[in-house]
């Protein structure tokens, strides 16, 4: 069974075909990299998988369960989590509160109007732990607005990991980071246990290639090359798309 599958997925905006007959399957525990030039439809694909966009055609399956018509908030409860290209965190809150919100999302506690959130010791401890995974527990009380871009990128990842996903979608996790920060994030992602399947969109080939086991190349919304890292890197089409730009 595949962890994540899309079959003949299609999406158009007006006359523009952004996703064209995309089919791919990711095995449980796999590290899949999705690459392609700007406008290839990578983020749109993620939006279709998480349910933020509705496809015109095709299906999305999660561990062989059809989730195509499922609301995006329900997909979260089935184990999908993602990070965003543009950071959309809760700017007015502390890092700890940001992660706490992420943790709450999957717990029935989120509906409770009587308990005091500040006193949920177990939840807050888990949030600190999540911040610890990305090396930021010393900044737990810092308001997000006062953190650096690199730190926020790591918070993004912590938010997603806190959701205890089975499938983790990372949308350009290295964007805008310094060399040192990239190393940190790389180590972070490499350290994620195998019970989490990872699909990553990335532009920066140098860093991403290390993590990828299989690669899918998108171009104009279509899958043009797919295979193991070695196969894709050597493929003439890949070179054409990237070097021909």
């Amino acid at each position, binding site marked *: 069974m595949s962890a994540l599958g899309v079959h003949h997925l299609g999406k158009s905006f007006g006359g523009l075909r952004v996703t064209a007959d995309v089919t791919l399957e990711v095995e449980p525990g796999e590290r899949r990299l999705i690459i392609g030039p700007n406008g290839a439809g990578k983020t749109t694909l993620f939006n279709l998988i998480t349910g933020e966009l509705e496809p015109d055609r095709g299906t999305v399956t999660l561990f062989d369960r059809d989730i195509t018509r499922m609301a995006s908030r329900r997909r979260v409860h089935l184990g999908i989590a993602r990070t965003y290209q543009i950071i959309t965190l809760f700017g007015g809150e*502390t890092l700890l509160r940001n992660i706490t*919100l992420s943790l709450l999302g999957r717990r029935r506690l989120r*509906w409770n109007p009587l308990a005091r959130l500040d006193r949920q010791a177990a939840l807050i401890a888990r949030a600190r732990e999540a911040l610890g995974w990305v090396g930021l527990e010393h900044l737990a009380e810092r308001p997000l607005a006062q953190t650096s871009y690199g730190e926020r990128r790591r918070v993004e990842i912590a938010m997603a990991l806190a959701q205890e996903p089975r499938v983790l979608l990372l949308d350009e996790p290295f964007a805008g980071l310094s060399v040192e920060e990239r190393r940190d994030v790389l180590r972070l992602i490499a350290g994620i246990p195998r019970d989490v399947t990872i699909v990553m969109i990335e532009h920066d080939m140098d860093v991403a290639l290390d993590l990828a086991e299989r690669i899918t190349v998108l171009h104009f919304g279509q899958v043009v090359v797919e295979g193991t890292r070695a196969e894709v890197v050597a493929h003439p089409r890949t070179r054409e798309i990237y070097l021909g730009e």
Partner: protein
Amino acid sequence: MRRVALGAALVALAAVPLWVGSTYYINVASQILLYAVFALGVNVLVGYAGLVSLGHAGLFGVAAYAGARLVNAGHNHMAVAAGALAVTLATAAVFATLALRGTGLGFVMITVALGQIVWGVAYRWISITNGDNGLSIKGRPSPFDLSLASPAAFYWGTLVVFLVALATIAVVVASPFGASLRGTRDQPRRMSALGYHVWMIRFLAFLLSGFWSAVAGLLFLYYNQFVSPQVVALTSSAEVLLMVIAGGTGTLLGPVVGAALVVIVKNVVSGYIERWNFVLGAIFVLIVVFMPEGLVPGTVRLWRWARAAGRPRGAAAVPARGGEGGR
């Protein structure tokens, strides 16, 4: 320290009928409290859910009218309260379902329309609402055999309700649901992606806000002994919104301050200046332009700035506090 301040404030509030001069001012104080309940209710939506409503006077009014009809039909006051609250909650559910079809300004416009429908019914459906002549009732409830007929007694009754409202809303704000609500205000897409049911959260917030608006409407009915279509006009919704905005949406006490400001201007100042609507509008414009976060946070901000400016040169500047005021 905070507990002492809180206790002192409670004592001061409870003693109002004793240290304030005439029954006129006691009545003003009662008005402030009942409108504070209304404003607190509206702020659940405006401040914490980030949804601005210009139709909440409709809910306030539905409760008052329903209450009036039930009182005049001879029911005891418990039944009146239960009935009025039930009718208003049902109305709020309808309002919410329709208004949540729009977002941002669309939401505002739909609430205007809904408020106007209630106004239209109040004005035209004379067989139910007596139209422009309004409905009057006689008498106030006597919970636990304590009559609320006198101004002081009514004030204390209203104070109890106000404190319950304040406490309840404070609890909700500090709860996981409250955090979820604020989350939907700040990043609704993100919240969906985190597993939250954004529509349902907003719907429930609308009901909560409708509940306290209804309570305030009942208090108004008993205070005034009369309800008319003016209560549900657009200007009334605007007034309560003004209370919320003037006081500040990001804090718990902001709406209370706003309610006090508006009620005082309305009652007391209008004795000296004839055109209080003009003054009210002007205050509104000034606050929105110069102190958009409202009077409470704005004053806090000015105070902190004044303190920092007063420090001797060379001392560390007051550290910028990110995340204060919630917005």
